[in-house]
């Protein structure tokens, strides 16, 4: 094994090398640094990188810990003490987090080394990472295309071997959709499974942080480190955390998987549909029992999402006013002008659009018609899943109706962009867990190979079973072993 080959390894392949002394944590960081310096100019996945600090931590790494000496890339929305946390926004371009998010504290306690801040849509608002105020990240499989979003930097880095694994956040699909676009595994945990403390809030009742990895086993390993209740997050769930690797490798015979008929809409790209159909057949061959069922309120999910998520965001983003930290305008005559100019300069167009939307739906006279009604429909959507999971153990769908689209293709039409999340949003509204994993490729007009993602969904706190089935599928195919042509 040469140093140049190290970055292509999965976490679970790297672990025995580190523990056996074949490589040192310092060598791992060095190998990653040279890979990143080669790849980064091609894909622009990172906003910031501090190899010196990472080497410092690598030298002190405790290899007896579960993730001892493993560098993990972090989406630029998760606080790491002493590192910039800009959310890819001008409004926080100079903000350095003075504290660790709970999941970072846990990740460090498991021995991992946070290395690098990955690019994203500003404040996680977007599905292509084009809404970053810093740079546009390119899809490693086709550099004319987006990596998906909002955790596009994390997904691109992992897919390109520029990170062993990464953390992202998922409010409406922001882990799963870029994982699908980049041909890797992305897990959105159940709401409350991973503490949100220290994760800059976009929509508090929907946000969840989770892993983006090369394999399902790596996702389980990261989940083992970051999951669990947190007294600083009242919405975190108190249930004990299982070993998420426990069920990996167990056969899935008899597991019931539901195919929601609402997710077989006309808008699905035929190549995506073919790949997902093949995956269903494959799962059947592995012994899963496939049945069709209905999630009757699916058609309302996108509308409900854009009412609730923007409402919460309009309050969550109010704190970025330049009074205590972050971008602050100069030369203003009064307080109102300070707020107006600071925020006009600090936020990008999509963020402003959502703040305005959210402010509107909460306004007196509109609250009942929008916010309150959306809450009621959200409850109906949640119940759809409760009913479905009485009949089946898991649900299956494409992660995205289309493979990675071209840069700039959808920026002019926000609604088209919003519809890219049509299959992922409901999991956030229902608070359940869901995973995206590679299930094939689509061939673009120019002949490039574009990964297709398969989404599996399970009821709240059923991550172990979700990973079991995903792992069984993954191990029966070789999609996860394909690497982009960089």
């Amino acid at each position, binding site marked *: 094994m040469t140093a140049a080959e190290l970055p292509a390894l999965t976490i679970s392949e790297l672990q025995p090398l580190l523990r056996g002394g074949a490589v040192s944590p310092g060598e791992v960081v060095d190998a990653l640094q040279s890979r990143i310096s080669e790849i980064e100019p091609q894909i622009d996945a990172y906003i910031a990188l501090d190899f010196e600090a990472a080497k410092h931590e690598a030298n002190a790494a405790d290899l007896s810990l579960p993730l001892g000496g493993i560098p993990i890339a972090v989406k630029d929305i*998760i*606080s790491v003490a002493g590192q910039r*946390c800009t*959310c890819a926004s001008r409004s*926080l371009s100079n*903000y350095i*987090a*003075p*504290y660790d*998010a709970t999941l970072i504290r846990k990740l460090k306690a498991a021995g991992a080394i946070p290395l690098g801040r990955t690019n994203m849509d500003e404040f996680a608002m977007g599905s292509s990472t084009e809404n970053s105020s810093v740079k546009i990240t390119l899809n490693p499989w086709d550099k004319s295309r987006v990596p998906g979003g909002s955790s596009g930097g994390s997904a691109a880095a992992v897919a390109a071997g520029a990170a062993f694994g990464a953390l992202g956040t998922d409010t409406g699909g922001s882990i799963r959709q870029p994982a699908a676009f980049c041909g890797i595994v992305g897990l959105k945990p159940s709401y409350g499974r991973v503490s*949100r*403390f*220290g*994760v*800059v*809030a976009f*929509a*508090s*009742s929907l946000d969840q942080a989770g892993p983006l990895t090369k394999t399902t086993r790596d996702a389980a390993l990261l989940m083992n480190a970051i999951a669990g209740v947190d*007294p*600083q*997050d*009242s*919405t975190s769930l108190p249930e004990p955390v299982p070993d998420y690797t426990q069920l990996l490798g167990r056969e899935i015979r008899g597991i019931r998987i539901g195919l929601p008929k609402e997710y077989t809409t006309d808008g699905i790209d035929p190549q995506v549909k073919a790949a997902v159909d093949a995956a269903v057949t494959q799962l059947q061959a592995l012994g899963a029992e496939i049945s069709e069922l209905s999630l009757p309120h699916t058609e309302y999910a996108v509308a409900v999402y854009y009412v609730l998520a923007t*409402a*919460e965001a*309009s*309050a969550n983003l*109010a*704190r*970025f*006013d330049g*009074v*205590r*930290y972050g971008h602050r305008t100069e030369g203003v005559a009064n*307080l109102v002008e300070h*707020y107006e100019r600071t925020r006009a300069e600090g936020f990008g167009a999509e963020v402003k659009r959502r703040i305005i939307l959210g*402010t509107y739906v*909460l*306004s*007196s006279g509109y*609250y009942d018609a929008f*916010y309150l009604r959306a809450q009621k429909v959200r409850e109906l959507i949640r119940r759809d899943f409760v009913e479905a999971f009485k009949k089946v153990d898991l649900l299956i769908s494409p992660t995205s109706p289309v493979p990675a689209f071209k840069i700039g293709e959808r920026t002019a039409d926000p609604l088209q962009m919003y519809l890219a999340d049509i299959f992922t949003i409901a999991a956030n509204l229902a608070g359940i867990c869901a995973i995206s994993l590679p299930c094939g490729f689509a061939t673009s007009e120019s002949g490039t190979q574009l990964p297709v993602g398969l989404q599996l969904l399970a009821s709240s706190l059923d991550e172990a079973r979700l990973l079991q089935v995903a792992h069984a599928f993954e191990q029966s195919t070789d999609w996860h072993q394909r690497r982009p042509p960089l």
Partner: protein
Amino acid sequence: MNYIAAIGLEVHVQLKTRSKMFCACPNAYGAPPNTHTCPTCLGLPGALPAMNEEALRMTVLTGLMLDCDIADVSKFDRKNYFYPDLAKNYQISQYDAPLCTNGRVPLHDVAYPQDAQTAIATSGKTVNLVRIHLEEDVAKSFHFETTTGIDFNRAGTPLMEIVSQPEIASPDEAFAYLTSLKQILICGGISDADMEKGQLRCDCNVSVRAATQAELGAKVEIKNMNSISGVRRALRFEIERQIALLESGATIQQETRGWNDDAGETFLMRSKESAHDYRYFPDPDLLPIATHALLADVRARVPELPAAKRMRFVEQYGVSGYDAGVLTHDLAVAAYFERAAEHSPKPKSVANWILNDLQSALSAAGISVGDCPIPPEALEELVGLIDAGRISGKQAKEVFAEMFETSRPAGVIVKERGLEQVSDVAAIEALCDNAIAANPKPAADYRAGNAASLNFLTGQVMKLSKGKANPQIVTEILTRKLKE
């Protein structure tokens, strides 16, 4: 034309919790600026609130003390507005599901201003409440010449808002309402409720209308009062101002006015602005609160309230209703009285000593009963000495003065000063015999019917005893001997 006023009070109370409402920072006054802060109360990106359960319990306890309905399920909402003292630019507060609704504050006579106690229009009145809710306090702004500094030590400390119905009819009633409320809050250990320290803040809504008119007049809100008497003065001024306006044929505008205590007048702060839209919505960071889990614990904490204490003092110690009111007006005085009166055979005398000599000595010295140099047990001893006839009432005053000065026990002072009265009958009889023998004429005069001569002879005996003989016993013995 007769006018009537309708006053509603919104009282903000700082809760005496150890930590802030949503983080572990200390809830303490007076530290250097921005030293009691953390990511949560500074509103840093990613920080979340975590509920201080004691703040919930204190609010529910207040609700129970004030006879409120406690919500089965309550929740917190975000109140959205921009201001530099509000770290997140939204305040975590309660909108449509407050912890407590309804309830009442009983006004008792002693709670009225002293100069108004003889003319209380509606003795025994209670003022109904609308609601009590819990919210986080904002930071404090300090305006300098060209800049404004913000101290976030206060940001995120628990603040309880108690809203009354507009049922308060006069400035005196408002005074009694605040005094009674303050007393109950102190009694429950909720707050020290000191207005000058901002622990209790009060906004007044006041409207005036012709006595013949049913619906309320336009509401004027007054802010900035920093004492209960200031509230009374502000309301007096404002009611007169509004009456004068009505008399002149003008209409009252809905507006917010400030109180300038030095000038003794209210001034316009802002006229009715376009109604502020706070865009309240449930805070997704906090779970709804089921109060039943707290209630058993909190019920056990409901203390004896001032009204119940008053009644018990009358029954248990035989003091008058008025005296019981004064004794229970200040919880510390009530506790002092109970400790002094508990084992005393003369609890009424103990009460009199506290209400007269002790209170005036304390106020002359400018100290509170908590720092009283005479421990309650020592006062009980003093009253015991008088009761046993060992010192006279006049001597007791001297002894009291020295006790207050030196904190030494009454018995020691009496002994040192040789004040103890001689009540030994045999010794006094001998002195009486001497006095009669040495003053045959007055003795004869008395026997002849001149009653005044007895006083002279008593004086002689007292002189012989160097003032220590119990004058009552002297008179008895002399009377008996002269009749022999």
